[in-house]
């Protein structure tokens, strides 16, 4: 316990060094196995203050280290970690401008009159932007929704000397005088993400109430009234926590902006095929390995829309599948003219006798609508055939969000066996799915087995 008659924190007699070493050892316990997650209680307990978490009577009479408050906070913390592992975190933060990203209303006081800088309340607004930049860097998408003149707002965003966030940090913007709930719906459509992954940050309680009522699935935190309390409010937000940040997280925002460029190209192209051709798409399919494990588990947890069976495999589950001789786990990485999307899809084949079953087939919504799903399926068909299967079985397990893939298998030549179960005869070679001509495979996969 902290508090000692020896003041030098490095002195052996104080015991602090030993305690720190012990705690550090505990922190590294998650290295034992990839399905172990450490809850750094010590760190949180220190930030809350031990005094509020303990009751000496409970310690002496019952050997309980925590009082009821402490137990409740610990339980919350563990539940929070479980929630994060299960993929409950929000993905998009939609923020207001005036009096949220900076102090004052640009339309009234002009760019010079705004509070945003490294002094006083201006620093609180700047720190608020810094916190949002951290969110951005950890893979949260930022979007703007503000009632403003677009020219005024963009000028502040790109030119204000005290600004931390610039327009390049936002994947979508709705700067207009329309209903914010409607704007949020439009942003969700544009990003192809569902509103239950959205957080809405606005200083105005009326706007918050409006959005919360119109879109109950959007999380609308009650931003503190005083701007100086807001940076710490964002730091304490549990709804955007994640266990770790992958490289895909770091580049997520960039890839959504690439999607915007792609959409423009599409609008200018004469035909859909011509558009796909111009994308120069290249797929790299690989067997799951230790390097792709974390990303694969993350996709299993997070992918909702293009996910045929929605099996929420964890790192541990996938490790078992990797070792299973009757299963093949493939990841697909996607690259085109605009960006390298990294690993964006996962499929699992399980062999049973002369049948191969598609246990899992999922793609990140960022790569949909570009015939990548067709190419990936064609690859699986070929892989199952080479694996010696005569029939390929696919399943569709309906959820609230995966309606769009309901007919995926029948649309690609599978026969419906019963509701949600489909079969493809791999010996009828002329009717198997083929790789669309607009997509190339990088270095065809070689089976080492």
């Amino acid at each position, binding site marked *: 316990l902290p508090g000692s008659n020896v003041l030098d924190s490095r002195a052996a007699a104080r015991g602090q060094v030993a305690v720190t070493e012990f705690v550090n050892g505990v922190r590294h316990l998650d290295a034992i196995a990839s399905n172990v997650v450490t809850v750094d209680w010590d760190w949180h307990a220190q930030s809350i203050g031990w005094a509020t978490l303990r009751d000496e009577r409970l310690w002496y*009479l019952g050997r309980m280290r925590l*009082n009821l408050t402490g137990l409740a906070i610990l339980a919350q913390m563990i539940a929070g970690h479980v929630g994060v592992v299960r993929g409950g975190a929000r993905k998009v933060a939609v923020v207001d401008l005036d009096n949220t990203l900076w102090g004052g209303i640009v339309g009234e006081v002009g760019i010079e009159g705004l509070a945003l800088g490294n002094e006083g309340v201006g620093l609180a607004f700047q720190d608020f932007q810094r916190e949002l930049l951290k969110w951005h860097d950890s893979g949260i998408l930022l979007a703007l929704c503000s009632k403003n003149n677009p020219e005024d707002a963009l000028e502040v965003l790109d030119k204000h000397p005290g600004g931390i966030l610039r327009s390049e940090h936002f994947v979508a913007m709705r700067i207009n005088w329309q209903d914010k709930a409607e704007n949020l719906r439009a942003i969700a459509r544009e990003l192809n993400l569902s509103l239950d992954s959205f957080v809405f940050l606005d200083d105005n309680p009326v706007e918050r109430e409006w959005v919360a009522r119109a879109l109950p699935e959007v999380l609308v935190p009650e931003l503190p009234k005083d701007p100086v309390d807001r940076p710490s409010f964002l730091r304490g937000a549990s709804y955007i926590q994640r266990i770790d940040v992958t490289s895909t997280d770091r580049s997520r925002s960039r890839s959504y902006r690439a999607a915007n460029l792609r959409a423009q190209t599409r609008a200018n192209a004469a035909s859909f095929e011509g558009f796909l051709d111009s994308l120069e798409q290249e797929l790299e399919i690989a067997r799951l390995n230790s390097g792709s494990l974390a990303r694969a588990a993350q996709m299993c947890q997070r992918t909702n829309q293009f996910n045929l069976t929605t099996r929420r495999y964890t790192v541990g589950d996938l490790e078992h599948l990797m070792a299973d001789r009757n299963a093949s786990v493939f990841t697909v990485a996607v690259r085109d003219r605009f960006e390298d999307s990294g690993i964006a899809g996962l499929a699992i084949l399980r062999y049973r006798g002369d049948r191969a079953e598609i246990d899992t087939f999922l793609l990140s919504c960022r790569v949909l609508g570009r015939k990548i799903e067709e190419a990936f399926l064609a690859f699986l068909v070929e892989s199952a055939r080479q694996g010696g299967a005569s029939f390929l079985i696919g399943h569709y397990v309906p959820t609230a969000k995966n309606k769009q893939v309901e007919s995926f298998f029948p649309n690609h030549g599978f026969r419906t066996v019963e509701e949600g179960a489909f079969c493809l005869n791999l010996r009828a070679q002329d009717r198997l799915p083929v790789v669309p001509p607009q997509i190339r495979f990088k270095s065809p996969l070689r089976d080492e087995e």
Partner: protein
Amino acid sequence: MRQRLKQLMALTFGVPAREVPDDAAAADFPRWNSLGHLELMMAVEMEFRIQIPSDQMQELSSIGAIEDFVRAQDVAVEA
């Protein structure tokens, strides 16, 4: 007062309130063990907004003893 205590015991030990006897004591509930006792003490403290010193805690092992203790505190306790 006794009714409120019975409610607390019912909640703490997971039994219906009507099954808590008027002279309830530790022996009446399997879950009134040492841990259950501390839970009950915490519940009583929160309910009546009082602090029970550690030496008293061990002695309050019946509904009568708890009631006497709570009444002796300088707090407004409605019957």
